[in-house]
């Protein structure tokens, strides 16, 4: 079997396809950017996680330091147990405060870590004890309505 120019063209075509797949994967998608390198896990319990999803960002001071790797429901305490995977480069004090926040008014939800002042650092598998649940807009509105209604009763 001899090589022909046809083989050259087919090889060229297939390699262009591979190059564009790599371009789509690394430059357009987040295959390259999503790995955090070496990482460790922390847990946090919330009364209500809102619309937090697996792979949501974990941010501290606005910088992405990790991702949510699992969300479970604890049948004993009836709370949501969220597992955070944090990059090894970042260590947080034991009194760090985990809040579920929303980017923008209607944006995606993420976990914000507000750093405390303790000298001891959180280790692999530790549980963040201070948490604040997601703000549910419906609850806010109903609180507001009830408040308005009770004010009306007094007058």
């Amino acid at each position, binding site marked *: *079997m001899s090589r022909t120019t*046809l*083989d050259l*063209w*087919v090889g*060229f*075509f*297939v390699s*262009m*396809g591979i*190059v*564009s*797949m790599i*371009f*789509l*994967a690394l*430059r*357009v*998608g*987040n*295959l390259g*950017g*999503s790995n955090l390198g070496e990482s460790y896990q922390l847990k946090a319990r919330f009364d209500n996680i809102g619309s937090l999803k697996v792979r949501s960002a974990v941010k501290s001071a606005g910088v992405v330091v990790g991702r949510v790797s699992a969300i479970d429901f604890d049948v004993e305490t009836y709370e949501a147990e969220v597992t955070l995977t944090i990059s090894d480069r970042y260590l947080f004090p034991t009194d760090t405060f985990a809040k579920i926040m929303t980017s923008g008014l209607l944006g995606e939800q993420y976990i914000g870590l507000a750093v405390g002042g303790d000298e001891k650092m959180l280790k692999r598998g530790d549980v963040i004890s201070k948490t604040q649940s997601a703000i549910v807009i419906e609850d806010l509105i109903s609180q507001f309505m009830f408040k308005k209604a009770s004010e009306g009763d007094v007058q």
Partner: protein
Amino acid sequence: MSKFLGNFFRSIGHQVDDGIWRLGYACRFLLTLLIYSGISFRRFRLTAKEVYFTGVLSLIVIMVSGLFVGMVLGLQGYNTLQRYGSSDSLGVLVALSLVRELGPVMAGLLFASRAGSAVTAEIGLMKATEQLSAMEMMAVNPIARVVAPRFWGGVIAMPILAALFSATGVFGGYLVGVQLVGVDEGAFWSQMQSSVDFREDILNGVIKSVVFGILVSWISVFEGYDAEPTAEGVSNATTRTVVTASLVILFADFILTALMF
């Protein structure tokens, strides 16, 4: 009046009946094709030749249309997004619409009209000039020797063409968005990367393009093999390939989108 109605319903019934017959025949044809497709991998040169004809020769049309579709998306998206002050997410809009929908669908439509029609005409003409019967006389199975390599060539070429379409489209959106109308380059790429997921968006797009490749190649080889062996029959079969393939692509796209996202 009753005679007219009778004829009317009879013709509808005939068409439905005929359609079901053809569908069954097409399925049996696909099965036979798959059974006899060993040769198209053992003698890969046969398939490579078809990849050349369906894929390499479609490169220019795919890349130029991808570039222009991306540029149009960039312009239209910018005009709408800047009204809400969010022109920074232009990259997300361009990349998601290309990778999820336009890449596979547009590449599939172009592929059906550029390569599918050619395959149908080729096989139909081979049938009309009795080349297929001559092969059978020489104990060469025409399905294994002629039809299967064309089918697999199309199935291989289609995902590559769709990926190229998406990639050139994103580049076209970049040209218009960043170079022409001045969206910030960092925001364009970083927002795109944070919103486009490899598994959710890109792999699903690839799956779509593989499915379209199978459908288009199947329809075009079947229409060619099933064509009436006359000049008119071949031309009808070519038209039917383009029409059926385009409709099937759009229908399958709806089904796949409903399943995936």
